[in-house]
């Protein structure tokens, strides 16, 4: 048993490092690892992965908040979208054609991949003009970038479109059980034109809240197995702390380059899931 514990723990560390650096939940690593390598049921794996999203978020947020990378005001504004979206997604899950949704969201991610690839050389967004609502809500931010060695002041734009996208990203999470952070990062980076590092840190901050309501449900159903979730979550917590420390010293371009293959993979996987039954 000790060996299995250590193996699961190590997978948790890896998922925590990757997830915290990229603003994702890490389910993309944990679910396949637990089902394929350890032969666990999908339910057990998804439940453990949902709890570990909270671990990624909480473990990394401490460092990101201290470094001012997290924009708490943007986070709370957008959490309204993710939380209500997740709620409506869960409510209409039974009445909706999932295949079509997979294809739609897959195409959306494909488009984001393309945009992210186009922007791969730009370190910081330039010429962002804040909209009226963003100014009224004081969503602008500033942080000291340890990789660039100077302070970055930024503005936020397209405040309402950002919220609407978050609603659909929350609905996707509620309907399909996927995409904790993969929609949030492009929405902040490409639509609201925030710096990439602020986008991943703020996404990281938000995913814990969205995952929490899902995790309560898994707990109530008894899907959270302490002997599986325990070692994973402890590893993820540790990995997230390390990943956050690494991320604040990395250039945005590097982080984006790590993000592109993951978002491309997820896009292809979702489209595949959507079409494979036809």
């Amino acid at each position, binding site marked *: *048993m*000790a060996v299995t*514990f250590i193996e699961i723990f190590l997978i948790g560390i890896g998922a925590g490092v990757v997830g915290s650096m990229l603003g994702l939940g890490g389910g993309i690593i944990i679910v396949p690892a637990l089902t394929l390598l350890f032969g666990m049921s999908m339910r057990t794996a998804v439940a453990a992965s949902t*709890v570990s999203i*909270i*671990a990624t*978020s*909480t*473990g990394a*947020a*401490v460092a990101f*908040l*201290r470094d*001012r990378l*997290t924009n*708490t*005001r943007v986070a*709370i*504004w957008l*959490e*309204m979208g993710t*939380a*209500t979206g*997740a*709620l409506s997604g*869960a*409510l209409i899950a039974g009445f909706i054609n999932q295949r079509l949704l997979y294809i739609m969201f897959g195409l959306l991610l494909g488009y984001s991949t393309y945009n992210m690839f186009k922007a791969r050389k730009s370190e910081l967004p330039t010429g962002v003009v804040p909209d009226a609502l963003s100014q009224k*809500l*004081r969503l602008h931010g*500033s942080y*000291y970038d340890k990789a660039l060695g100077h302070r970055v002041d930024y503005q936020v734009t397209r405040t309402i479109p950002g919220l609407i996208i978050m609603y659909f990203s929350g609905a996707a999470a*509620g309907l399909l059980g996927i995409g904790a952070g993969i929609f949030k990062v492009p929405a902040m980076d490409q639509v609201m034109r925030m710096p990439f590092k602020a986008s991943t840190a703020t996404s990281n901050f938000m995913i*814990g*809240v969205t*995952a*929490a*309501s*899902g*995790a*309560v*449900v898994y*707990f*109530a*159903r008894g899907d*959270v197995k*302490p*002997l599986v*979730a*325990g*070692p994973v*979550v*402890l590893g993820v*917590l*540790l990995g997230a702390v390390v990943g956050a420390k690494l991320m604040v010293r990395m250039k945005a371009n590097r982080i984006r380059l790590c993000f592109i293959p993951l978002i491309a993979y997820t896009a292809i996987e979702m489209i595949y899931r959507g079409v494979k039954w036809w």
Partner: protein
Amino acid sequence: MVVTRDLAGKKPETAAIELVLARFLRIGSLIAAALLGIGILAMLLGQTEFAPKLITAGLLVLLCTPVMRVVVAGFIFVREKDWHFAFFSLVVLCALAAGVYFGSAG
């Protein structure tokens, strides 16, 4: 402290909320990590009755942390009379509560 120098030029209330939340999340994750670590150790030492309970307690502490984080942020906004954001926090909490309610029922 270095932190104070970093804050120069930023509105003090914005700074305060980030530090308060950072401290809160750190306490939550440390308690959770301690419970999980002791639980796993106890499991390896053969305490199969007691250990899963400790681990579950650790997971529950972790689960409550982000929800409580929204509550804490909401209180800070109320104290600062930032009514917009206090209201946004309330919307998030209600949506989370409704999600748990419908999720557990379904």
